[in-house]
């Protein structure tokens, strides 16, 4: 999925949480593939190394638990899920490099035999639990890819009083009421790159 059209939205910081369900389902994001997960998070997403070490404790690629973010590499089209620490025996079992890794047997992630190509591509990114409020705003301002149909569906699910402060379509400022009215939206089959700003993104 490559973004052709662009939509930018500015709204009150407390409203960013309405986008969190999208991250739970998974959103497409543009990346340069071929790097390790840690490189992706630090160099492309701009997440601090200490944050990664202390807060991102559970990582999945394609449904497989990752033990080492320095060796696991990102392939174009991969599904990457990031989570904070989880309760329960199974939560501990899924923890990256955790003591109970043996209990997950063959479902530990391993790189494919062929190294991934370094190229521009997309991955599906999922965020869970504590990482939603902590990383969601940063990734929303970086941009996520959605089908226009999913964007329109998302808008219809929001309450009437959605307080939008600014709205840009393909870089052109438009009256905010056009967002709610759905005026001039791309065709349902088009892919849009959505950026959301609150004015208080993580630096």
């Amino acid at each position, binding site marked *: 999925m490559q973004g052709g059209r662009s939509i930018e939205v500015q709204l009150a910081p407390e409203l960013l*949480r309405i986008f*969190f*369900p999208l991250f*739970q*389902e998974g959103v497409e994001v543009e990346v340069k593939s071929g790097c390790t997960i840690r490189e992706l998070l630090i160099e492309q997403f701009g997440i601090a190394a200490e944050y990664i070490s202390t*807060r991102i*404790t*559970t990582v*999945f690629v394609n*449904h*497989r*638990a990752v033990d080492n973010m320095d060796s696991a590499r990102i392939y174009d089209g991969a599904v990457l*899920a990031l*989570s*904070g*620490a*989880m*309760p*329960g*025996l*199974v*939560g*501990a*079992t*899924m923890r990256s490099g955790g*003591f*109970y*890794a*043996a*209990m*997950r*047997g*063959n*479902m530990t992630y391993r790189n494919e035999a062929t190294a991934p190509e370094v190229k521009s591509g997309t991955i599906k990114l*999922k965020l*869970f*639990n*504590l990482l*939603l409020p902590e990383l969601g705003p940063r990734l929303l301002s970086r941009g996520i890819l959605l089908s226009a149909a999913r964007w329109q569906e998302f808008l219809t699910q929001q309450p009437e009083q959605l307080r939008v402060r600014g709205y840009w379509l393909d870089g052109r400022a438009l009256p905010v009421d056009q967002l709610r009215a759905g005026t001039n939206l791309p065709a349902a089959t088009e892919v849009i790159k959505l950026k959301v700003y609150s004015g208080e993104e993580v630096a």
Partner: protein
Amino acid sequence: MDKIVRIDMGAKGGPKVTTEPVGEYAGLGGRAVTSLMVSKEVHPLCHPLGAENKLVIAPGMLSGTTGAMTGRLSVGCKSPLTGTIKESNAGGQAAQVLARIGYAAIVLEGKPEGDDLYKIHVSKDGVKVIVDNSLKLMDNYPLVAKLREEYGDKVAYMSIGSAGERQLYIASIACTDPELRPTRHCGRGGVGAVMGSKRVKAIILDDAGCKQRPPQDPEKYRDANRKFVEGLRKHPVTGEGLPAYGTNVLTNVLNEAGGYPTRNFKSGVFEGSAKLSGEAQAELEIKRGGSATHGCHRGCVIQCSGIYNDKDGNYLTKQPEYETVWSHGGHCGIDDLDTVAQLDFMDDNFGVDTIDMGVAIGVAMDAGLIEFGDRAGAIRLMEEVGKGTPLGRILASGADITGKVFGVEKVPTVKGQAMPAYDPRPIQGIGVTYATTTQGADHTAGYAIATNILKVGGDVDPLKTEGQIELSRNLQIATAAIDSTGMCLFIAFAILDQPETFQALLDMLNAFYGTELTGDGVVALGKTVLSAERDFNTRAGFTAAHDRLPRYFYTDPIAPHNQVFSMTDEELDSVYNW
């Protein structure tokens, strides 16, 4: 807690109450008391609903003190569901109040003749057993409301709903929370049916005039408790994740791991999981004026529960746990939180185990009784349970019996008890615990993830396959020990990662009892409890052949990992070698 009260419900002339010193159970609590007593006193071949079975109710070692997280109550007996020994525990206020009154255990024995229904009032002035036939076939919410009119709000209530009175095999015992809602349940194994067989509808625990239990060394106890609480608050699971999202925070992660059993264990991924997640649930609870952070008993600092309101902002139920959201949700192909919450309320009200109930409905769906995903149909089936119709009685006899009645080949049970919300094919280690635990399929039997600190059985190399046997063994030992302290199992996360928090727990125990318990002592306690339970089960006729998963887990791979359960019989049989 220096005495035990025995109530012979079958005594000639009516129930007879005797009190005795705590004796050999001094310094023990929770699962240690229930399992050691049941193993010693209950005939292993007795019928679980007969006069020879006993229902033992025991608070934890530190219950009734000022210590944090000390409010678990254990209930033990021979299980009607599994035929094994059973320990089922719950939060709520009952453990704290019972311990303050001074009882290490209440033991219900015998079986009355006739139809009379009883309530038991326990206070510092003694134990009264009272006939009250006006309570017949009442469900838990109206029952507690009626009892509150008589006994007020400064007590704790234990009760059974209509399912327990009908002696259905997955009936639970409800314990009231701080708001006196019957929301915390000793759910597993049909302990409510055993209480029903004794014709005991409710136990009122009244600690008026009683004080907190005093530690041997109050200053050390206070200091250790402070460090223990600090440890819980600073850990990301107990200090952040659980308070914010509850146990249902696991839905997204289990689904992503491909270990979320979907539509009666046919897939490890459910497409509707995001709609059921703890994150979605917390958002909805807050939006509707409920709460995503709530303690099930006073003294809880983790606060993993919550209040779930309906669309109009009225209380519907407490925050459903992960296992409940799974059993009534993904297991049944249902992706609607309001439906799950409605079913959770019905579970609590009728008094049934949410895991076995949801799994039974999913098995009925697999049989074609209703379609997977049929929300209204699932509620209709639950209504049958509440009415006590033949269909409802079958369903509330558990997944195993439901599968047999409707001719379902693939039923996810071990020793008659339904598996919880973790598929054992991708997560092999938990399958070892399901197969070998003394309790039937049970995730909490191997939950105490502190074995690396306890060094139970020595260090384990997690990269070796045999590590899964070692880990399951060690987890079961550690869990049996923590269940005996009466501490909430969720403390395990903080004591796993923070040795100083584990030490604080030991310091609390030692300051309270004036002992010098070490990690080795905790391990020894766990082994003692498990050995007694295994011994009971052996005498009840259980052999190695019962320590297996259903055959299809060995033959049917599950997506997305396409794995089967691959542990050999020899490996499973070695779990209890210590």
